[in-house]
């Protein structure tokens, strides 16, 4: 018999991999009887779906007040880009 802690780990793994027949059997039997583990499994599945949606929002750059590059960060990046371009102009293109 597995305890809730082991079942919770198995529940997590079921989101990443196809479990063995034995593991699946134990997971199902346990969640049928244990409402806390049943709830946990349901919740982590929902969190997985929520993360997929979050990823989509980030890809579409549709995040409500998202953060921006800091002024210093932006300047640092501009300088790095300028330096790289200048260096390449001086030494001729490598490619």
């Amino acid at each position, binding site marked *: 018999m597995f*305890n*809730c*802690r*082991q079942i*919770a*780990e198995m529940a*997590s*793994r079921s*989101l*990443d*991999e196809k479990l063995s027949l034995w593991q699946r059997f134990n997971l199902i039997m346990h969640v049928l009887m244990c409402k*806390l*583990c049943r*709830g*946990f499994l*349901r*919740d*982590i599945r*929902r*969190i*997985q*779906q*929520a*993360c*997929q*949606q*979050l*990823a989509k*929002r*980030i*890809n579409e*750059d549709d*995040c*409500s007040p*998202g*953060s*921006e*590059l*800091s002024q210093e*960060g*932006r300047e*640092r*990046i*501009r300088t*790095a*880009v*300028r330096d*790289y*371009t200048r260096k*390449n*102009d001086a030494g001729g293109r490598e*490619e």
Partner: protein
Amino acid sequence: MNQAQESSPKTDPLRWVDEYGDFLFRYAKSRLREDQAAEDAVQDTFVAALKHADQYSGAGAEKAWLLGILKRKIIDLVRKRQRSVTSEHDDNSTDISGQLFDRRGHWRSDPRIFGPTPDSALEQAEFWEILKSCMQGIPQRQADVFALRELDGLNTQEICQELQVSPSNLWVLLSRARMRLSNCLKLRWQP
């Protein structure tokens, strides 16, 4: 010679910074969490893009091309971070399960977050803020693999290959990340 003459319009790097800098930064931050690391990744991306500007076809999708480079940079950074943090450090101090389960492996308290019926959490702006904030609270190694798995949708084989970690190690990290995230949501999200 000035910038405009030197670079063809399709690869004007300073325009890239203005146009895509913030988007790439937000993307990198969602994966790496720290501002500094995210900025470094964005900078590396632009420099790499300049280096390989000849490989860019120029056909639209400039943003997608830069994002593709950034994704590689993020994985490189994560791989380095996974190596630099000792696995010992991640063993006990970052394992939340001791707080969630008693010695016999039973839940100490009810872990359930959402009600039994599909609720409207995903439609509420507040939920997304809490989710993002809770993701910030996951310890680094766990959070890094969690982001590759759940945000990038890589499968466990791909993650093991990219990061050179064993499958069993990966499952432990993912399971701890999920427990921590679920516990944080439980504490902070009231449907």
